[in-house]
């Protein structure tokens, strides 16, 4: 199993992993061509956000897993930590790929946030304006002016405009236009937070936080490979708690800004936690898959063995349940309150063919993995575990798809969506796999490595 000439556990001349980075790079080129050739401008924003955020969640999950292992001073995951660290080290790639998106939103070339962007922009000009002929109808004008993503609301607004004062007296319409006004009011009240300048500044801040944390932890761990000094471990441990707070804040607000604000009037405080839970599932599945391949090809000797896969899969199983718990909590609260402004987000994920995807998530992201991964026997059957990890990564992609694309309309998978995912994911994983080929595959300098190597699951 172990090649005697490989003392520092590197990819070396392995046929697969030496060139593994070429595959995602090829996919990225193909994805780029698909997206550019097939996408119309209105779809591209959603598709790119989907690809970008899906990719980012792998990196975020990795950052979390590294930080939490140092926070708890755990040894079980030390030997598989390098795989996670390498995924984490792709943070700058995510940041670079996010820049065009942020710029697109900043200069309003990407119109997916128009619902609040138009309101906040309107708000700036909304103060008494002598040049406005309709100054007295200001409130009403505001109702008409915002570029709502909801066709229904827009139609009502136009209707209202056409009939002027008369519409307000029509029983059937007055209620709806009240709702539209309320909807608008909510967005207007949010404009202190949801405005283009703030959104851009915060977005850059999140990327900066992730890049700093990821690069610092990766650099310290790499330095420890060379000098084998335990002081790096101590430093990483003492900084883990504040780092995790920064990480969690950035992730939560990134989820608010990038995903939740697609539906500007809607709000949910547990939103970021759901994204975090999905991220953790995806990175654990990915770590197991990469680890299994390295293990099978004898690249890590016995440093990552069935005991580590068992531990990783247990944590993954736990996060599958946690994902379900937070997702269900959010949905259940909204379901039993039954308030239109809250339910609208879920209606968009139910109508127009999305019902099927919602069911797929319930059964594919929870019921099936719960029953198929609950037993020790299932977790330790490595080909079985491998299949489940592939499935869970697929379901995680569906999960993010379900967060983003319903905002663009009825369920209709377009080539542009797949293209954008392949492009962003491809570039990211090309970098990650290339990096994996250039570092020791286990953190050879970590003082807890031997303990981790001798990990043993008692029943």
């Amino acid at each position, binding site marked *: 199993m172990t090649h005697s000439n490989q003392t520092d556990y590197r990819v070396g001349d392995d046929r697969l992993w030496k060139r593994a980075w070429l595959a995602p790079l090829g996919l990225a080129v193909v994805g780029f061509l698909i997206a550019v050739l097939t996408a119309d401008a209105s779809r591209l924003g959603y598709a790119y956000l989907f690809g970008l955020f899906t990719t980012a969640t792998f990196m975020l999950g990795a950052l979390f897993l590294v930080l939490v292992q140092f926070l708890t001073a755990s040894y079980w995951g030390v030997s598989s930590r390098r795989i996670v660290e390498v995924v984490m080290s792709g943070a700058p790639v995510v940041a670079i790929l996010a820049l065009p998106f942020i710029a697109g939103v900043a200069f309003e070339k990407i119109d997916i946030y128009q619902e609040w962007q138009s309101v906040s922009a309107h708000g700036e000009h909304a103060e008494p304006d002598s040049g406005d002929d309709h100054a007295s109808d200001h409130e009403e004008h505001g109702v008409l002016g915002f570029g709502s993503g909801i066709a229904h609301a827009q139609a009502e607004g136009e209707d209202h405009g056409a009939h002027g004062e008369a519409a307000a007296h029509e029983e059937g319409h007055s209620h709806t236009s009240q709702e539209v006004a309320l909807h608008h009011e909510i967005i207007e009240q949010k404009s202190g937070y949801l405005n283009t300048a703030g959104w851009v500044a915060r977005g850059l801040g999140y990327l900066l936080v992730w890049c700093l944390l990821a690069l610092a932890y990766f650099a310290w761990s790499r330095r420890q490979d060379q000098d084998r000094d335990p002081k790096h471990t101590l430093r990483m441990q003492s900084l883990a708690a504040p780092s995790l707070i920064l990480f969690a804040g950035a992730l939560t607000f990134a989820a608010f800004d990038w995903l939740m604000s697609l539906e500007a009037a809607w709000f949910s405080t547990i939103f970021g936690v759901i994204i975090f839970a999905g991220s953790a599932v995806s990175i654990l599945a990915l770590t197991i898959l990469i680890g299994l391949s390295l293990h099978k090809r004898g690249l890590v000797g016995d440093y990552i063995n069935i005991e580590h896969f068992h531990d990783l899969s247990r944590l993954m199983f736990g996060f599958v349940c946690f994902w379900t718990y937070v997702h*269900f909590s959010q*949905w*259940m609260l909204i*379901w*039993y309150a*039954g308030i239109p402004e809250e339910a609208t987000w879920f209606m968009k994920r139910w109508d127009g063919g999305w019902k099927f995807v919602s069911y797929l998530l319930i059964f594919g992201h929870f019921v099936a993995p719960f029953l198929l991964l*609950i*037993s*020790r026997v299932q977790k330790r059957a490595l080909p079985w575990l491998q299949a489940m990890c592939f499935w869970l990564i697929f379901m995680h992609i569906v999960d993010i798809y379900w967060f983003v694309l319903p905002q663009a309309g009825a369920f209709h998978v377009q080539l542009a969506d797949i293209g954008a995912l392949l492009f962003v994911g491809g570039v990211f994983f090309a970098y990650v796999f290339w990096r994996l080929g250039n570092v020791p595959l286990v953190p050879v300098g970590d003082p807890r490595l031997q303990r981790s190597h001798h990990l*043993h699951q*008692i*029943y």
Partner: protein
Amino acid sequence: MANETKKPALYLAEYDTPNAIAQAAMKVRDAGYKSWDCHTPYAMHGMDEAMGLKPTRIGVLSFIFGMLGVATAVILIQYTNAFDFDFLSIGAGYPLIVGGKPPGAFPSMVPIMFELGILLCGFATLFGLLGLIKLPMHNHPIFASDRFEAATDDKYFISIEADDQKFDLDRTRALLEATNPTYIELVEQEVL
């Protein structure tokens, strides 16, 4: 040795080192004994294999009872809150509308399904565990041995119980003696 009011309860063999008891445990395991145990001052890695212990079945029990809890919740809610149906004259439920939701709506059942599932799962785990390890047990004949007190100090013991099918006063003693214990004792139990 045995008089009329006492009968053999177990053989107790004492060892000085963890290595010695691990070697001895493997011999006892290979001899096919089932009702025996090792007593060490601390948890020893690798003893499961040395003793040939099989993985516990407690998880299966927990899972079955967890699912039973889920099923109980579904049946209870559906019967009492969703239908006006009298099963075997035990009393009919009443279709209950809460918050304008349909009676017995699935989402409203989930928290109860979860709670009852967890409750029965927890019960099954706790009581199943107590049953499997035979607790509560008020006394055990092994405590009749004075030397056994060192099991919580610095000595390692193997006990082979008399109710084991392979237990035999001479052959079991011979087996234990072959494992080079520092001390060997037949612990007796009072019959009356």
